[in-house]
């Protein structure tokens, strides 16, 4: 027993500083390469073990079974393949982290975008009904964060009826439903009503998925045009 302790202790003492390239690049521990040879140069990484990051370690995510990972990767890849390398470089997105049970301050979330670190963390076990849509929703947050001046929230908010007000933040409201409204009134989902940024992301994600939106809704029509026009300002060849 003592010998084992001695061996363990010596390993601890003599272990060299670990050269974790992924950690050095994006400051998330316990990740490994899943796939990096994609034409749009996205780097797919997966959690080999659970990880904790963020202010006061408030972001947590867990490793997945290989089978689940393989299944979900196909879906994620199919959706993200729609963004070419040029566009991804412009919006500053490069690393896709795959893990499950993603939470921020103990609130479960579909994804956490970080355009500074060029990273999008995706919860691969997020509700399957909305899974593909939320991938684009989170990509929009990267776009928005990189081009705040283009996606002006004041202009956006003015599209809404006069007495409408968004919540202070996306987590300060109980409007979290993601079902698409059959009859829209300027908003596509209940979650659209949370903040201007979430509203934009909802419109964008519906456009990317190709869901038919209500043409007779003048507010929604303005919002759609706003998103489309501004995306073309970022990349004139962007195809929705």
């Amino acid at each position: 027993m003592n010998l084992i302790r001695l061996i363990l202790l010596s390993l601890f003492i003599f272990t060299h500083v670990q050269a974790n390239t992924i950690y050095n690049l994006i400051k998330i521990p316990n990740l490994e390469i899943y796939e990096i040879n994609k034409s749009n140069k996205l780097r797919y990484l997966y959690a080999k073990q659970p990880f904790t990051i963020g202010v006061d370690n408030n972001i947590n995510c867990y490793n997945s079974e290989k089978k689940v990972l393989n299944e979900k990767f196909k879906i994620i890849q199919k959706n993200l393949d729609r963004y070419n390398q040029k566009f991804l470089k412009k919006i500053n997105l490069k690393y896709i982290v795959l893990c499950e049970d993603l939470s921020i301050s103990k609130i479960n979330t579909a994804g956490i975008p970080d355009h500074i670190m060029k990273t999008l963390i995706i919860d691969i076990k997020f509700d399957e009904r909305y899974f593909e849509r939320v991938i684009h929703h989170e990509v929009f947050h990267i776009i928005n964060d990189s081009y705040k001046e283009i996606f002006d929230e004041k202009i956006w908010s003015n599209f809404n009826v006069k007495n409408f007000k968004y919540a202070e933040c996306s987590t300060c409201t109980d409007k979290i439903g993601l079902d698409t409204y059959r009859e829209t009134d300027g908003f596509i989902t209940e979650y659209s009503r949370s903040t201007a940024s979430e509203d934009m992301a909802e419109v964008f994600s519906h456009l990317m998925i190709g869901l038919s939106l209500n043409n007779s809704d003048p507010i929604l029509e303005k919002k759609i045009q706003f998103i489309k026009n501004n995306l073309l300002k970022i990349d004139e060849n962007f195809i929705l």
Partner: protein
Amino acid sequence: MIQKIKASKSEKIIFIFIICLAIFSLGSFLLIKDKCLFVKDYNPEKIKFEKPNNIAVLNVPCGNVIIELYPEISPNGVKRFITLVKSKAYDDVAFHRVIKDTLVQAGDLEFGKKENIDYGKIGTGKSGLGTINSEVDAPFNFKKGSVALARTQKYNTEDSQFFIVLRDEPLYETEYTPIGKVIYGLKALEKIKYLDKSQYVLRPDYISTLRMLID
């Protein structure tokens, strides 16, 4: 009358053992002392290069490291590197960041010079020439021996610092500006001083000289 004492068999064995031990100890001491013992030192004058104008010779404690530069991949990055090499700016500059078997980094001209090294600021120094834009769009395979310009967390902040990878680093493609590859002498870089517990090296090894083969 003094009687001649004949050594017993066991005494002879002990004597031979002590001699062997002494030879082994001396040998080990010499091996440990000379970290460059098995490192081949390449003489660039004796090697034929296809593009001699693109060859830089980095002299480090264990010998010469011969780097082929790739101006066709990163024209501005290579231009900056050559400018600094020709002004002898890299001479006596520390390998301030070294990760065993992974990478060596040098080129802090402000805080990494031998005569006025500043351990508190090393790695943050500038060349005085300003930053240049990243050149990360061209495909580049970051194989062992690749040389690239270092930068801050942001793109377009490359200046004088460069690093050489001691293992394949595929994730560095499109992340860092590649400027060349070590074609001879990588072993000499593997002997650069590193620390077990930190990437930043106290009392580091220094670049002796860095020159273009053809000035």
